[in-house]
Structures are given as structure tokens and as C-alpha cells.
């Protein structure tokens, strides 16, 4: 079966103003809204569109994390994914570990595409997709803003610093999504009801044969240096004066 594997991460919603805990041990997550990582929502949407164009038959969504992550899997199922895999763990998962877990899922599911977000907006690592591609020994097309499937290859436009780059990759391949790839659909209430009946399988991290090793210890969290509020000027003349005084024009 032609299958697409999409990985989604549960993260603090992008609208939340994240605050560092006073003791520096992390950020405040109690009572904070959690959502699918925005890039992963785009990944789900892209997979659905490829399936809707008849180029794939099944969209499988996967996540690695604690039990609460099932909410985000249900959301992805409500968007239209066919089935979900939950790799359960309470441990903090580094990108390399996530990539190793996803490789196990890839071996199991044999997808023609694995679509991930280009970065998780909590750790901002931007590593997992590239690592999965390396371990799988398959092509990677990162930061995608356009994906065209053409037989046994994909043509992917990438957002790079210089502009837009187009690559051709043989399938199977790993794609990571950028913001302009698509606009994810809204979930409708009946879809949420339907999603409750879709298959969601729970797997144990250890049983997959991957250890959650901690190689990066996060010793201390601090708030960023605050910029101080400056002065307000009342017109363009004052603005030019202020710029001159600072030697900027």
C-alpha cells in the first residue's frame, strides 16, 4: 500500500507567551494550551492532499511522548489521517532518539514518504527529519514550500537563504515542511466524532528497541535579556534627529 508517514509533536501552542520557571528548571507548561507543532499540522495537510490526489492510499500519523499526546493524534485523525501510532514514553526525547524511533516506524510501515515539520517550536532544533533521512539512507528535501509527486520521484521546492531551490528526489524520501507549503484545514465537529473510531495503536519505546538516552543535559533555563523600551518621537523630524544623534544616518 502506498503510504505516507507523518510525525507530529505536541508542543506549547504558538500563541502562548512562554515563560521560564523562576527556579530555571524549564518553562511553565502547567495549564498552558498545547497543540500540534504548526509545521507538523502542515505536514499532515500535505499528506492528506497527496492522498486526495490519488497518489497515496493511507496517511499514518505518529508521535513520541506521554499519554497526553493522544489528543494531538486525535486532532490529526480528525483532519483526515487514517490511523495513528503512539510511541509512549515519559522521557525527554532528543532529536536523534526521535529519528531512531521514526526509523523503526518506517521499517514497519514502509512509507513512500515520511513528512516531518522543519522544526519543533519548543526545542527549535530542526534536526529530526535530516537525521531520519541519514539513518534510513534516503534523500531529504527540507524546508519544502512545494511538493509534486511524479511517479517514483518527488520534485520539491525548498525555501533557502538565497531564494527557492528545486530538488528532485527518488522515493522513498523524507520531506520537512516550511510554513508556506499549505494552509491546514479546519477540523469540523463531525470529523472529531469520526476520529474517535479510527485506529490508534500504542507502542512502547523500549519494545521498539530504542533507548531514550540523554546526551544533552539542559542545566539551566533563563529568560532572554530584555530590551528596554526606548523613546517615542512625535514626528518624522524628531525621528531623523534621534537617528542623527545616534550617528545612524
Amino acid at each position, binding site marked *: 500500500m502506498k503510504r505516507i508517514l507523518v510525525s507530529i509533536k505536541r508542543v506549547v501552542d504558538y500563541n502562548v507567551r512562554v515563560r521560564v520557571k523562576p527556579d530555571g528548571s524549564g518553562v511553565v507548561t502547567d495549564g498552558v494550551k498545547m497543540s500540534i507543532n504548526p509545521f507538523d499540522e502542515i505536514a499532515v495537510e500535505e499528506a492528506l492532499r497527496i492522498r486526495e490526489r490519488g497518489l497515496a492510499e493511507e496517511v499514518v500519523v505518529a508521535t513520541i511522548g506521554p499519554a497526553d499526546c493522544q489528543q494531538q493524534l486525535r486532532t490529526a485523525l480528525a483532519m483526515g489521517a487514517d490511523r495513528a501510532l503512539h510511541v509512549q514514553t515519559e522521557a525527554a526525547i532528543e532529536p*536523534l532518539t526521535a529519528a531512531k524511533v521514526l526509523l523503526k516506524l518506517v521499517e514497519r510501515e514502509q512509507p513512500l514518504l515520511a513528512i516531518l515539520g522543519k522544526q519543533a517550536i519548543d526545542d527549535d532544533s530542526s*534536526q529530526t527529519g535530516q537525521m531520519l533521512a541519514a539513518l534510513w539512507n534516503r534523500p531529504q528535501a527540507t524546508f519544502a514550500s512545494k511538493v509534486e509527486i511524479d511517479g517514483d520521484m518527488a520534485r520539491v521546492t525548498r525555501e533557502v537563504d*538565497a531564494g527557492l531551490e528545486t530538488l528532485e528526489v527518488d522515493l522513498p524520501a523524507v520531506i520537512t515542511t516550511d510554513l508556506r507549503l499549505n494552509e491546514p484545514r479546519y477540523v469540523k465537529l463531525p470529523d472529531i466524532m469520526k476520529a474517535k473510531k479510527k485506529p490508534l495503536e500504542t507502542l512502547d519505546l523500549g519494545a521498539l528497541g530504542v533507548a531514550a538516552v540523554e546526551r544533552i*543535559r539542559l*542545566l539551566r533555563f533563563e529568560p532572554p535579556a530584555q530590551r528596554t523600551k526606548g523613546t517615542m518621537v512625535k514626528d*518624522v523630524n524628531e525621528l531623523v534627529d534621534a537617528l542623527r544623534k545616534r550617528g545612524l544616518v
Partner: protein
Amino acid sequence: MPNKILLIAEHDGARLNLATAKCVTCARSIPEAEITIAVFAADGAAVAAEAAALSGVAQVLRIDHPAHAQPLAATIAPQAAKLAVDYGYVLGPSTTFGKDLMPRIAALLDAPQLSDVMAVESATRFRRPMYAGNAIVTAEVPTGARLVATVRTASFEAAGTGGSAVISTVSVDADLPSHTRFVSLSAAKSDRPDLQTAARVISGGRALGSAENFQMLYRLADRLGAAVGASRAAVDAGYAANDMQVGQTGKIIAPELYMAFGISGAIQHLTGIKDARTIVAVNKDPEAPIFEVADIGLVGDLFQVVPELEKLLSQSQ
């Protein structure tokens, strides 16, 4: 024992990217640093010569191959991973080039990666931003284990020149894949300074309303010798090209002067400019969050302010 660092050069085939000189400064702040720069190019002579002139660099390796005409991660990574066995650190810039390549190298080495390193505290302790810059984390990696990292270039000055590192040509025995092929690159041609390194940047947001209206900002930028940037909303709406986006998912910049016109100041945008020396904001909404971080703020209509500003600046010159 020196800490041997392999730094992967970013270049366009002819010139070394300034990001690499910034990575050298980061690398030099690792204690006992011994820095080697690897240049993967079709013909790396010119780029290697530039790299060898950076002060603090001990050695430059040229890995010439026709397949390196385009910087494909799938091609470079297996070779870089082979070279890396002799090194304790593998560094690259946190540009789209480095973000694409470095994790692929890290996975082949089974090494952890730290992204966007903004400060080096010791050979094993580094600082990096998380949560769109809302948290700065001190991270520790095991002593003696290999580390891959990308460098947040806005946090480091470029290394100076005057060095004279030894250049040697090497070939690496690795299978180069054929599964990934470069098709094209469409880059907006511009005579303006490069957004990532410009001393002055003029930026526009959704309020500009059209690509035509952005011309107003280009004229002002040309008057000031500035680069032009944009918010995500302006890029999404098609007013500006994708490579102009500033922010968490665009470019992280640190100019002397950043002028934001009609940009509200969302956290994802601010994370891209917090190292700017002076931030100027023009917005018609006095409550716009951008004013919280602006050094100079002006409440006003950009469609009046920009032409007036251009006029005043031209009178004085």
C-alpha cells in the same frame, strides 16, 4: 590536548560566505581550539584561499568533486562524517545550508547536535535559544564525546583575516548517492546589501498592502544603503520574496539599525531582530507590541512617514 574542530565552509562556489567567518569566532571560543575548515566544492581553490586567510584557522581541506557544484546534504554528509572521525567537534552555520546538512552528519556519526549555539561556556557547555528565543538554555554534553553544532551567526563577529593556514587537497572514500538531484535555484538578483550581513535593514509588514507599495521601502533602503526585510505576513501575501523573511523561521539578523514599518511585533518576528543595535518602529497603533522593544518609536501612518523620511534624508545629504 587540543580540541580538534572541523568546520564545514559555506560558499557559493566562488566566495566564502561570511557565516563561516562567524563560525570561526565561535569555534575559537572553545578552549584549546584547533580549527580545520573543510571546503566541499567543484573547484575549491578560491574559497579555500579565503578560508585559509581567516585568523585562527590551522588547516584547510579541499574536497573537490564535480558533485559538489551544488551543496547537497546527501552528498556532503557521508564525506564529512568520514573526515569527522579525527575531530571532537563538527560545526556549521545555522543557515539553511548548515541546518540542512549538519543533522545528517550528526546522525551518521551517532552524535548529538546542538542547534543555534549563541555562546560557548566551556568545552562541554553551550548556550542556545529555545521556544522562539523566549528561553536561553545552558546545555551540557558529555566530556570526550563527539559533538555536532550549528552556530547562530548573529551572536558572533566575523573572524578577521591575516591567517595563513595550510591548504591540502584530500579525497574521501565515500559512496555518493544519485537519489538526490539539483534542478534549479531561483534567487532574486539584487544590488542591495545582503540581508544577513547588512548594517542597516528596512523591513515592511502586512500594512504595506502590496508588492508595489514595497517599492517605497526599496527607495528608502537605497537612500540608506540598507537591505530590505519583511514579516512573514508580508511574504505570505506575496508582497516580498521568501528570502526576505525575518524571524524565528526566517533570517536571524543583527544589524546596527533595524527599521520596521507596519510590523506588529509578533514574538516570532522579534526573535529575529533582538540582537539589532537600534530598533526603530513605525506603526499606526500605539499599542503595537513592537514598541515594547523599539529604541525609537513613532506612531504614524507609514504611507506618510516613509516618503517624508526619504525627503528629509535626501535634503541632508
